[in-house]
């Protein structure tokens, strides 16, 4: 039903999105926690910075990534010299772009959930001998699970759909950076490509549907876990 080229695109999209999620998750949660629980100078600025990829057009974000991570960019040059690692025009770069674009969505969802965690429970954990870190790990973290899952679903969907930043930063290289949206875009540019476009778009939708159902299942599994103090 699907051509080998299409399978390749799907596999690549999955790899890019999953790697993006895995890499972004800890950073997103850390940012969400900072924004939810700490006061510090420049907090609004950090908040704005996190929202940035949402506001500026994806193509510009891709361009900024290129300026920073391209082989002539400060970070890119460093990575290249230190590890022989190059992101631009590689699938890892597509994952970076997807992660950056997904970050604001993930942070917001997680932050909402962290803010909803009753601090009195954290205090109770401390009196029971838990260090700050253990109290975080055993109370705040699991109680903010709904936000983590919501953030992952949003972020995954956004990753699967990411186009502008990817094509600008990682280009549209078959087998390397041509993810589903890029493949769709390529087809859109040729007259009569509509049928193939529809098929690929449907696949993208199915991928996220699967992610959605997985998250619903996880939420239901954690169901008994009422989020309220008794």
């Amino acid at each position, binding site marked *: 039903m699907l051509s080998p080229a299409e399978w390749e695109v799907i596999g690549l999209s999955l790899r890019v999105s999953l790697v993006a999620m895995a890499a972004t998750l800890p950073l997103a949660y850390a940012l969400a926690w900072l924004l939810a629980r700490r006061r510090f100078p420049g907090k609004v600025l950090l908040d704005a910075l996190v929202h940035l990829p949402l506001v500026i057009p994806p193509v510009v974000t891709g*361009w900024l990534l*290129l*300026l920073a991570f*391209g*082989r*002539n960019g400060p970070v890119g040059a460093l990575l290249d010299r230190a590890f022989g690692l190059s992101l*631009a*025009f590689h699938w890892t770069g597509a994952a970076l772009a997807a992660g950056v674009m997904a970050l604001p969505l993930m942070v917001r969802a997680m932050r909402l959930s962290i803010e909803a965690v009753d601090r009195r429970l954290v205090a109770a954990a401390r009196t029971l001998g838990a260090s700050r870190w253990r109290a975080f790990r055993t109370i705040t973290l699991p109680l903010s699970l709904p936000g983590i899952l919501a953030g992952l679903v949003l972020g995954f969907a956004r990753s699967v759909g990411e186009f502008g930043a990817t*094509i*600008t930063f990682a*280009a*549209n*290289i*078959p087998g390397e950076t*041509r993810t589903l949206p890029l493949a769709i*875009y*390529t*087809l*859109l*540019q*040729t*007259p*009569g490509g509509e049928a193939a476009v529809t098929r690929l778009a449907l696949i993208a939708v199915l991928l996220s549907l699967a992610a959605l159902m997985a998250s619903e299942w996880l939420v239901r599994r954690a169901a008994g876990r009422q989020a309220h103090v008794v």
Partner: protein
Amino acid sequence: GPVVLAAASLQGALDEVAAQWAAAGHPQPVLSYAGSHAIARQVEAGAPADIVVLADGAWIDHLRRGGHLGADEPRDLASNTLVVVHPGRRPPADVARDGAAGMSVAGALGQGSVAIGDPQAVPAGRYARAALETLGLWTATAPRAIATDNVRAALALAERGEVDAAIVYASDAAASRKVRAAARVPSGAHPPIRYPAAVLARAGHPDAGPFLDHLVSPAARQVFLRHGFAPLPGED
């Protein structure tokens, strides 16, 4: 003024031509730029526009077959040529326009990465691929090709030195000070590059026809040439 849906790659020149027309006392045309494919779909969906200007022969044919164009044949505004550019300052002699590149296309492509418009989709990429195939260079170039979503993006990569070379329109190269044209792609190696324009079947603005006439007038042609576009085949 009349509403014109135009390919984004024509922007600099078209703005100037429209200003020229307005300076002559006509109402200012409304110019909406986007990719040729987006414009074609907007026309199919019934866009309330008067004129389309595309960067692609395939989409104009598609629109004509769909009955969206007026009775008159589409007219080409200008042509273009492809050049291979390298990162670096442009020397005083305008090689892009003169074509005095001195290097062969193969030599200019070198061994490094080459940015081109997506050869499956973007018109400039399709022309580039056709030319390289004619020249027998495609199989060697394809593995190191960096496909972008439009020509400007390919040019930008060369300007930044993120790639070692790029194949772009001469009009793009002419506008940039940060790339050197290293070789000109012989225009016989690819199908003629066209910028077809037509009045839409549903056009309502009385200025639609006259403005299209202005677009193909010698005065407008001068503007296109100044922006690095090429004369129409068999014209110069």
